[in-house]
């Protein structure tokens, strides 16, 4: 018998879901500590940790110097010895300065030494706001190509809350992409839920359909849902699968859907070449090609940095029109 689950927060904003998840984990586990640039008194560039300093004190809420490599390295060392650090990258783009610590020290630590590194790096990423080449990137592929990291990219407030809490509980380094465009636009109800203590692969059907399986994550899942409405008017039912977790990857959910729809397309805001869409297309091709009745199509950002002007940027991000056209070609 289905039970009515209690709604904890109605219409919770994505950005507030992040604050709430951090606060709840910090209250529950005294080893959780936050590090980042301007996160203490100022509350962070996006105010996600506003008032945390007052509640948790300056030992657990630490401003760092502008030193991404030093910060990731220090967090890794502390994590090995029992702390659960959560780093806020001011912008996801800045992780490049801490790349070696992340992919060589943190990511490989468990395999090399059997010492776990319970570390979360929050990565405000993505475009849509005319923020230019260094505040807009979608860089998930870099980390998906680095064994040892888990990668999360929620599209909805409830997933954002649950997955941030799970990421903090997980004993592995987790790269947590939070989409800046969704911060103050996405709202969903937060229901009472169990918080798993591991990040597991998830392929969630956000809209059912039987003509084509659309795969996306982050902001692009919202675009896919919008585009699916358009297609519905043409009598085409798109199944929209959202991947809030990119690594580990739940392929079975994708294959199950493709078995039904016999068509697949992938949408991502990241640049095209060697983007995660290429990997997904390859996996589908490897294991589910006999279920397909059409090409696998990718609708992506072109192989280009992000321009400053909003119009120039919008021309590059897969639009509802571009998505619908892509789907139509697959179905033609």
């Amino acid at each position, binding site marked *: 018998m289905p039970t009515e689950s209690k709604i904890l927060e109605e219409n919770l904003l994505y950005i507030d879901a992040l604050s709430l998840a951090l606060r709840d984990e910090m209250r529950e586990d005294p*080893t959780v*500590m936050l590090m980042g640039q301007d996160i203490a008194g100022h509350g962070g560039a996006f105010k996600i940790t506003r008032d945390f300093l007052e509640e948790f004190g300056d*030992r*657990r809420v*630490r401003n*760092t*110097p502008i*030193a991404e*490599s*030093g*910060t*990731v*390295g*220090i*967090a*890794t*060392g*502390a*994590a*090995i*010895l*029992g*702390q659960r650090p959560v780093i806020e990258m001011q912008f996801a783009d800045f992780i490049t300065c801490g790349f*070696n*610590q992340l992919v*060589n*020290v943190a990511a*490989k*630590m*468990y*395999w*090399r*030494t*059997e*010492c*776990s*590194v319970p570390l979360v790096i929050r990565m405000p990423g993505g475009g849509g706001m005319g923020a230019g080449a260094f505040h807009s990137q979608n860089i998930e592929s870099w980390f998906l190509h680095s*064994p*040892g990291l*888990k990668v999360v990219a929620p599209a909805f407030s409830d997933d954002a809350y649950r997955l941030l809490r799970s990421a903090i509980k997980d*004993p*592995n380094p987790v790269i947590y992409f939070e989409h800046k465009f969704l911060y103050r636009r996405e709202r969903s109800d937060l229901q009472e839920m169990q918080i798993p203590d591991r990040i597991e692969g998830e392929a969630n059907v956000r809209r059912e359909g039987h003509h084509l399986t659309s795969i996306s994550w982050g902001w692009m899942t919202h675009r896919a849902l919008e585009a699916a409405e358009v297609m519905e008017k043409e009598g085409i039912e798109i199944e929209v699968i959202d991947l809030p977790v990119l690594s*580990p990857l739940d392929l079975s959910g994708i294959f199950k859907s493709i078995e039904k729809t016999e068509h697949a397309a992938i949408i991502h805001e990241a640049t095209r070449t060697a983007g995660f869409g290429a990997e997904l297309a390859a996996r589908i091709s490897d294991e589910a090609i006999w279920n397909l009745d059409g090409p696998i199509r990718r609708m992506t950002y072109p192989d280009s940095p992000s321009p400053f002007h909003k119009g120039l940027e919008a021309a590059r991000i897969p639009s509802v029109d571009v998505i619908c056209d892509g789907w139509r070609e697959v179905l033609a």
Partner: protein
Amino acid sequence: MLRELHAYMRLTREWDLRYEKMFKTGALSKWYSSVGNEATTVACGSAIEKGDALVSLHRDVGAILRHYVNIEELFPDIFPEKMSLVRQPLGGDSRDRLFRLACQMLGREHGFSRGHERSYHYNHMEPDHGLIHLGMISHLGSMIPVAAGAALSFQQQGLDRVSINFIGEGATSTGDFHEGLNIAAVWKLPFILVIENNHWAFSTPTSQQYACDNLASRALGYGIPGVEVDGNDPLAVLEVMQTAVKRARAGEGPTLVEAHLGRHRGHSEGDDSLNQVPSDELKGYLDNDPMDLIEARLLSSGVVSRAWLQEIKERSANLIMEVVDEAMAMPEPTPNTDRNTYAD
């Protein structure tokens, strides 16, 4: 005190000589020798205790052996009863640690990384004995922030433990040297960074590495103490380290130590990088071998006899031969492709 330091230096020297020999006979594919570093590394290992974190590089087996092994337990009959000790041993099985360390060097199943990682690139933790040892990755300087992070964990837990990390002078040119040391200074972390300055980074002399007079003075830029010390003098290094450790335990923050020592070997065995070192400079290093210096000191102070020095040398060499032979006889790792990348 000198006798205790010497015993560990001798064990360390014989450890390296054994592997150097194995490299020469082709039994080992690669070896980075720590000959010449023993005074500094053993003294540093003598300044820490149970619960402290040791973060080592590839020429720091002196610190590792000092931390892992109770030499009185290994050679019970050749030390005076109630020898006054610089530090207490950790407890636990010294010989087994030595054996597993040999397995690690040889890529055997019983090594700390079970054959998956090379030589000193491993971690070894024994929570029951307060043994916390983090090894290196190949990228030099990268462990500085990580070691500072170990210090952060102590600070978070309100423990008076310290973290020590070694680097060569070459790694002071990395960004992580600056970032790690700066954050450690700002947060007053209980962290000590020891530069083993042997004046040659692979084949690059200090004149092509940095333009300042010395590296210890860089500490000024971080607002922390920086101390230069003769790295061939274990007592001098010990004193500097004890001051730094005391300061760190008291919550006063990090110290940067620059130990000057000599380049005795190539970057790795079998390369010809030692050819870059001018012969008179090399002679200066070899003439100041820390092993010779401490033995001369022990003899002149009348603490030990030449025969005793010979005896501990033979006992050390034999013990190491024994554990290395045992390790060689251990199984090679079973081929696999599925070692866990993620913690469960």
